[in-house]
């Protein structure tokens, strides 16, 4: 990383000094270097201005009437932990400078100030801030990856267990189905037409059939989901170039009737004229349908759902964003589990996100979620663009 590019354009500073002439001259010269400068003549005013709009670096005189520079520095550091402060001390006032550093200043300069020197210090302070930010981001990213790995491990374990159960359940299901079917066959015979309460028998048998069909669908989804994961990656030789815009439009068309019932509008947003990925279009479509139908179910009458496509370097992002009910903190770590649902028994199976997760992982991508209760939820799918 070339970590000290010589740009000053993005640096915002606040210059605090009670000596108007001195302050204005320095401000003018700094601005000429392309630095954004705002000015304050007192510590109290400086604090107020920071509240309104934060800056990167504060340059501040130690000696000021009212709140002095050291006190102001302490308050700034307490409130803005990323902000750096450079103290200006009177000629030969070493004491003020040392005091400043003890209280968290980045450095100090003695007046008279040499401008080159000041600019250099500002850049150093700015780079320190950027480095800390970058480290923070890296840490957050690492944490996220680790968390995803933990989730992935748990999902695989759960999936293995669940698929074993599904296999075992399929046989008794077949027996139940055929037992009910057998009784229905008998009821259909001519000599059975006149038996008492014939309709009740039929009704009960109908229910059994319906329930068995539903259970069968669940085991089928489960086995399919586990299969897509355990074959590790989907077979890349079956991948084709998929136009993500077209695919998204297709998905939206398919769920539109469901959305229309609640007056929900779904928008497709993208700046890219064309965005494609090498992947399996049917599987990806299934994931989009799952995400969209979840969003529709979570969104109030008249709400909005956005599907956004972004391109970055070697990745394509598909973002499904809704303004629905959101997901609580305790639920969000569990939504990708098989069978996890907060919906009524006949509304949700809890398999949608589990299947989606399996598919996306199998396609070599990532799926992640961000949500705030009562504000909305955003699912992001990241797919490699190249083969």
């Amino acid at each position: 990383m070339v970590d000290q590019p010589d740009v000053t354009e993005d640096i915002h500073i606040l210059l605090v000094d009670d000596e108007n002439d001195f302050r204005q001259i320095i401000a003018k010269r700094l601005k000429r270097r392309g630095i954004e400068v705002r000015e304050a003549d007192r510590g109290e005013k400086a604090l107020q201005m920071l509240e309104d709009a934060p800056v990167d670096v504060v340059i501040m005189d130690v000696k000021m009437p009212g709140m002095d520079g050291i006190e102001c520095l302490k308050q700034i550091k307490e409130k803005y932990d990323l902000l750096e402060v450079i103290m200006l001390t009177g000629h030969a006032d070493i004491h003020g400078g040392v005091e400043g550093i003890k209280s968290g200043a980045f450095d100090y300069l003695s007046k008279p100030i040499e401008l080159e020197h000041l600019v250099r210090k500002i850049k150093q302070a700015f780079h320190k801030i950027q480095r800390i930010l970058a480290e923070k981001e890296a840490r957050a990213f690492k944490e996220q990856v680790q968390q995803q790995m933990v989730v992935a491990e748990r999902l695989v374990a759960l999936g293995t267990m669940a698929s074993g159960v599904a296999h075992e359940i399929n046989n008794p299901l077949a027996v139940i189905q055929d037992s009910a079917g057998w009784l229905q066959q008998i009821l259909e015979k001519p000599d059975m037409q006149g038996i008492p309460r014939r309709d009740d028998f039929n009704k009960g048998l109908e229910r059994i059939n319906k329930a068995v069909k539903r259970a069968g669908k669940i085991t089928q989804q489960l086995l399919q989901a586990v299969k897509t994961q355990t074959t590790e990656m989907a077979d890349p030789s079956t991948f084709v170039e998929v136009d993500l815009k077209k695919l998204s439009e297709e998905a939206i068309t398919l769920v539109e009737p469901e959305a229309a019932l609640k007056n929900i509008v779904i928008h497709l947003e993208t700046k890219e004229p064309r965005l494609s990925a090498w992947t399996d279009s049917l599987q990806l479509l299934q994931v989009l349908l799952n995400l969209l139908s979840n969003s529709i179910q979570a969104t109030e009458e008249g709400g909005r759902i956005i599907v956004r496509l972004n391109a970055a370097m070697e990745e394509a992002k598909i973002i499904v964003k809704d303004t629905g009910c959101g997901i609580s903190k305790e639920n969000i770590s569990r939504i990708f589990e098989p069978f996890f649902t907060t919906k009524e028994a006949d509304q949700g199976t809890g398999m949608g996100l589990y299947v989606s997760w399996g598919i996306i992982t199998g396609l070599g991508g990532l799926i992640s979620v961000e949500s705030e209760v009562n504000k909305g939820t955003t699912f992001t799918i990241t797919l490699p663009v190249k083969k």
Partner: protein
Amino acid sequence: MFKTTSKIMLVDDEKDFVEMLSLRLKENEENVIAAYNGQECLDTLEKIQVDVIILDVKMPGMDGIETLKQIKKRHPLVEVILLTGHGTIQSAVEGMKLGAFDFLLKPADFKELTEKLTKAKERRKEQMERIQKAEAAILLRQSKI
């Protein structure tokens, strides 16, 4: 049209399943016998002429695929319909290559099953008739000499 009196054999280790499906098929006036594992299936075939076999792929001991191989080796004209689980679709493909007539996912829809069964029986009948004609032709030729 009257029902042909084809003989059907059901092969599955799950007794309840075999029993229920037999009952349903019998209700449709099919002539059904049962076997509860691959070996039993092969042994029965030595004694009785069977037209169509409905065979489960997942069985302990000799599995459905191995049983299918043996059936086709000894009785190539018997039609076999495979029953497979959702996770074992590959074995269905393998079974088709080995000469199975068709396959069904378990739990199978009964209507679908009876449709496939009817087709399998028809093909079996055609094959048998063709052989009978061929044999008759041979006999005819021999008697002329």
